[in-house]
C-alpha cells in the first residue's frame, strides 16, 4: 500500500478535481489504502478544497466506506430476513470460527474482515455474501471453511468461484456464480424485440407524441411509488432549463427485491434504449445509471454494452440517426445506502453528497441533478417504455387492472420451492402466485418488502396491483415454521440501520418502535404496551419527512392489523405494567468487574 496523500492525489486528478465525484474518490482511496483514515479525509478535503466535516459526513454515511481498515478480504454477509430463513446463522458462526473474530471486526492480522450488510439483492439464493465486490451465493458452513482457507492462502477472490451462474452471468465481463432464476416470462419485458427499433421509432415521432404514448399506456413508476411515468416526463419536458437529465434508479434496496439485477444482467440494452427514448422525449442529452454498490460486479459488463451502443450509433451524437439528437449514458456507483432509492436522495448521492432526501417542492422535474430538470425512473419503467413505444399505449393498457396497466416483475423469495423472477400481469392474486412459486403452505406473505404490507391467509385472494396490494417487486413468502415477530424484528433493525438520520421521527422513532417490539418479544409486554406500539407507529408514519419513515413502521403496523393474535399471545394479560428497566442487566458489568454475584430482590 502506498502513501495516503499520493493515493488521494491520483484519484482527485483522475476525476479532474470535481467534488461531485466525491464517492468515486473515496472508493478509490478505500480500495488503495483499505480504509478512509482521518489522514485520508484531511487530504481529500484539502485537495478538493471543501470542508473536512463534509468529507467525513460522506465517508461515514455510506455502508461500504470505512474509517477503520476492513481487511484485504472484506466479507459482507447479507442479513436480510430471508438470509436468516435460509441458514444465515450457521454460516455466520462458521465465518467467525474460521476467521477468528466477530462480525464488525477483522482478524488474521487485519487480513480478513467480517461485516453485516443489508439486503444485497440475492434473496433467491441466500445465504449470500459480497467479498471484495464478488458475490458468493447459497453459502453453507462447509463452503465457508473453503472460502476462509482460500483467503488465508491469499487467493484471488475471483478464483474462489467454483461454478458459474446461468445466462449472461457467464459473460467474460461478469463471470459470476449468481443465477437469474427467471421463472416466468411475460409479454412485455421478456418478449424479444429488435434492439434499437424502439428508439428509431421514437425519433421519427415528435417528442411530445412519445410522451403522449406513455401517458396513454398509463405506465406507472415501477420502483414502488407508482407515479405516472408519462406525467413525470411531461413535467420535465415543460420545465425550463438549458440542460436536462435522465437518471435510472438502479438502487433496488428494498429487502427481497432483485428484479433489476436480472434486467441489468439480461436486458441492459433494452434499459439503455428506454433511457434514450426518455432523453429524446424530454429533451435531454445525458443519462446517468445510478448503480447500487452491491451490483458493482456488473459495471464492466454494462460499460461494455454502452460502448457497443455508441459504436452502433444508438448512443452518442445524432443518436439512432436522428440529426440534432445527442444522447449518452454514464454509470455512477452508489456506496451502500437504502435511502438512496428515494429519488431526491439518489440525486444528492449522485452529486457526491450524503444521501439524504431533499425537501420538496421543488421536485426533481424542476430542480434535479445539478439543479437541472431531471427525471428519475426505475430500471423496469424504462424497459417498459421501450415496448410501449413499439406496440403503442393502447396495446399496453389492455393488460392489467383499472389503475395498474401492463406487467410487473416480481422478485419472489422465502419459503417457496421456486424463488426467482416472475413477469405477471397486474391483478394476479397472492394465491395464484403462491401456486406458481410453490409456496402453498405459506401463512404470511410480505408484499412490497418491509415497507409494504404483511398479509395473512384471509387476504390471499387480494390482487397484486396499485389498486390493492402495491409492490415495487418484493414478495417474501413466510411459512408456518417461522416466528413472524422475528421477521418483523429483522425488518425494524433494517430501518434503524438505513434511516438517513435527518428527521426526528424516523431517526429516534424507529429505535423506540424496535425497543418496544423487543419488550413484547421478551415476554415483558402488557396490553398497554401493545396499544402504545400501534399508536407510536402512526406518529412515525405521520410525522416523517420521506417515504422511508412514512413506511418504516409498516412491518409492525401491518402485522398488528393482520396477525394481532401473535402479539396477544406474547403479552402478559394479568399485569397492568411491567418496567423496561432490567436490574440484572444493569448491574451485570459492575458485578463482573467486582467479581460478585448480583443480589437481586424481587421487585
Amino acid at each position, binding site marked *: 500500500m502506498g502513501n495516503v496523500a499520493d493515493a488521494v492525489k491520483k484519484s482527485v486528478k483522475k476525476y479532474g478535481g470535481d467534488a461531485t465525484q466525491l464517492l468515486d474518490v473515496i472508493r478509490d482511496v478505500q480500495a488503495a489504502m483499505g480504509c478512509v483514515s482521518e489522514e485520508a479525509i484531511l487530504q481529500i478535503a484539502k485537495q478538493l478544497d*471543501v470542508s473536512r466535516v463534509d468529507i467525513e459526513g460522506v465517508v461515514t454515511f455510506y455502508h461500504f466506506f470505512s474509517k477503520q481498515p476492513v481487511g484485504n478480504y472484506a466479507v459482507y454477509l447479507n442479513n436480510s430476513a430471508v438470509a436468516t430463513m435460509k441458514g444465515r446463522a450457521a454460516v455466520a458462526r462458521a465465518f467467525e470460527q474460521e476467521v477468528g473474530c466477530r462480525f464488525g471486526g477483522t482478524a488474521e492480522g487485519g487480513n480478513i474482515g467480517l461485516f453485516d450488510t443489508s439486503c444485497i439483492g440475492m434473496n433467491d439464493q441466500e445465504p449470500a455474501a459480497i467479498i471484495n465486490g464478488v458475490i458468493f451465493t447459497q453459502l453453507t458452513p462447509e463452503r465457508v471453511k473453503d472460502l476462509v482457507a482460500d483467503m488465508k492462502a491469499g487467493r484471488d477472490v475471483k478464483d474462489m468461484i467454483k461454478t458459474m451462474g446461468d445466462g449472461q452471468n457467464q459473460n467474460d465481463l461478469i463471470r459470476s456464480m449468481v443465477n437469474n432464476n427467471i421463472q416466468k416470462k411475460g409479454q412485455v419485458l421478456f418478449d424479444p424485440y429488435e434492439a434499437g427499433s424502439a428508439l428509431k421509432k421514437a425519433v421519427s415521432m415528435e417528442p411530445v407524441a412519445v410522451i403522449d404514448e406513455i401517458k396513454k399506456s398509463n405506465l406507472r413508476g415501477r420502483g414502488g411509488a407508482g407515479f405516472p411515468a408519462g406525467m413525470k416526463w411531461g413535467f420535465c419536458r415543460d420545465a425550463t432549463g438549458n440542460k436536462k437529465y435522465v437518471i435510472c434508479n438502479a438502487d433496488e434496496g428494498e429487502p427481497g427485491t432483485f428484479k433489476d439485477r436480472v434486467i441489468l444482467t439480461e436486458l441492459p440494452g433494452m434499459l439503455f434504449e428506454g433511457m434514450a427514448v426518455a432523453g429524446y422525449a424530454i429533451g435531454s442529452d445525458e443519462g446517468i445509471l445510478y448503480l447500487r454498490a452491491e451490483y458493482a460486479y456488473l459495471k464492466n459488463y454494462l460499460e461494455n454494452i454502452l460502448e457497443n451502443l455508441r459504436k452502433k450509433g444508438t448512443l452518442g451524437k445524432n443518436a439512432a440517426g436522428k440529426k440534432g439528437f445527442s444522447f449518452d449514458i454514464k454509470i455512477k456507483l452508489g456506496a451502500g445506502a437504502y435511502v438512496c432509492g428515494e429519488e431526491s436522495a439518489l440525486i444528492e448521492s449522485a452529486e457526491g453528497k450524503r444521501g439524504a432526501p431533499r425537501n420538496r417542492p421543488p421536485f426533481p422535474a424542476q430542480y434535479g441533478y445539478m439543479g437541472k430538470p431531471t427525471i428519475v425512473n426505475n430500471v423496469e419503467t424504462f424497459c417498459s417504455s421501450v415496448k410501449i413505444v413499439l406496440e403503442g399505449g393502447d396495446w399496453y393498457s389492455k393488460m392489467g387492472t383499472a389503475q395498474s396497466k401492463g406487467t410487473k416483475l416480481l422478485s419472489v423469495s422465502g419459503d417457496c420451492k421456486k424463488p426467482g423472477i416472475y413477469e405477471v400481469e397486474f391483478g394476479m392474486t397472492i394465491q395464484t402466485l403462491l401456486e406458481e412459486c410453490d409456496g402453498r403452505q405459506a401463512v404470511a406473505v410480505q408484499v412490497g418488502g418491509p415497507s409494504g404490507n404483511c398479509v395473512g391467509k384471509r387476504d390471499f385472494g387480494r390482487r397484486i396491483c396499485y389498486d390493492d396490494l402495491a409492490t415495487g417487486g418484493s414478495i417474501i413468502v413466510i411459512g408456518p415454521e417461522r416466528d413472524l415477530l422475528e421477521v418483523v424484528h429483522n425488518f425494524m433493525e433494517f430501518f*434503524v440501520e438505513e434511516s*438517513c*438520520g435527518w428527521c426526528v421521527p424516523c431517526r*429516534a422513532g424507529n429505535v423506540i418502535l424496535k*425497543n418496544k417490539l423487543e419488550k413484547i418479544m421478551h415476554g415483558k409486554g402488557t396490553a398497554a404496551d401493545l396499544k402504545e406500539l400501534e399508536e407510536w407507529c402512526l406518529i412515525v408514519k405521520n410525522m416523517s419527512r420521506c417515504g422511508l419513515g412514512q413506511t418504516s413502521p409498516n412491518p409492525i403496523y401491518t402485522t398488528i392489523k393482520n396477525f394481532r393474535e401473535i402479539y396477544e399471545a406474547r403479552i402478559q394479560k394479568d399485569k397492568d405494567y411491567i418496567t423496561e428497566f432490567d436490574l440484572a442487566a444493569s448491574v451485570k458489568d459492575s458485578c463482573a468487574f467486582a467479581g460478585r454475584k448480583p443480589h437481586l430482590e424481587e421487585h
Partner: protein
Amino acid sequence: MSNEITFTIDGKECTGKKGQTIVEAAKENGVYIPVLCHYDGLKPAGTCRICTVRVGGRNMAACTTPVAQNMVVQSNIPEIEDMRKAIVEMLFVEGNHMCPTCEKSGNCELQALGYRYTMLAPRFPYLWPVREVDASAPRIYIDTNRCIQCLRCVRGVTAKDGKHIFGLVRRGDRTAISVDPELAAKMTDDQAQKAMDLCPVGALLKKEVGFAVPMGKRKFDSKPIGSEIEGN
C-alpha cells in the same frame, strides 16, 4: 398581478405572499406554529417536523411548504398537537437533557416547548445514548448530548469562503453534528456567539462566559414560547 395569497389556518382568514412558507405567513398573521429547526433567514431544513400541519388531508412540514391560494391548513387540532408533543418527547429521550445543569435553561427552545406541551415525563422510555463532547476548539464547546440536529449551526455559521464549519456525520440513530477541527479553531468570538444564539438548545456554548444572565431572568422565564406571536 397581485402577489397576495389568501388562505386559512384552523378557519382563520390569513393573507400571505407568494413564495412564503406556511410558518412565515402564519407568523405574520399572528398564528403560532411551533418550530425548532426553523430560524428566520436560514434556508428551511425540515429536520424536526414539529411544525407539521395538515393540508388537504396530508401531513406536511409548514417550514418547507409554500402557502398557496385558498389553502386550508389545520394546525391546532388535537391529533396534530399530540404528535408535536411526541416529537418533543422523542428529542428528550433520544439525547441526554439535564435541564437543571444546563447553561441554556430558560433560553432553551426545547425546554420551552416541553412546558408549552405540559410534558411531565416523556411517553417513550429514555434511550440514554453515549454522546460525544468536544471542547477542543478555543472558542466553542460542543455537547452533543443536548444536540437535536436542527442544523441551524450548519446553515448559519460558515467560514468566510462559505465552507462548512459544522456538518452531519454518520447516519440513522448514530447521526451527529461534528466540526472541521481547523475551521472550528479559527472561529471568531462573533461566530461562536452566533452559533450559541442559533442553537435552540445547549449543545453549542461560547467558552469563558457562563450564566451571564441569571436563571429566572431568561427569555422563557417570564413569557412562554410562542407568546411573542400569539400576543398573550
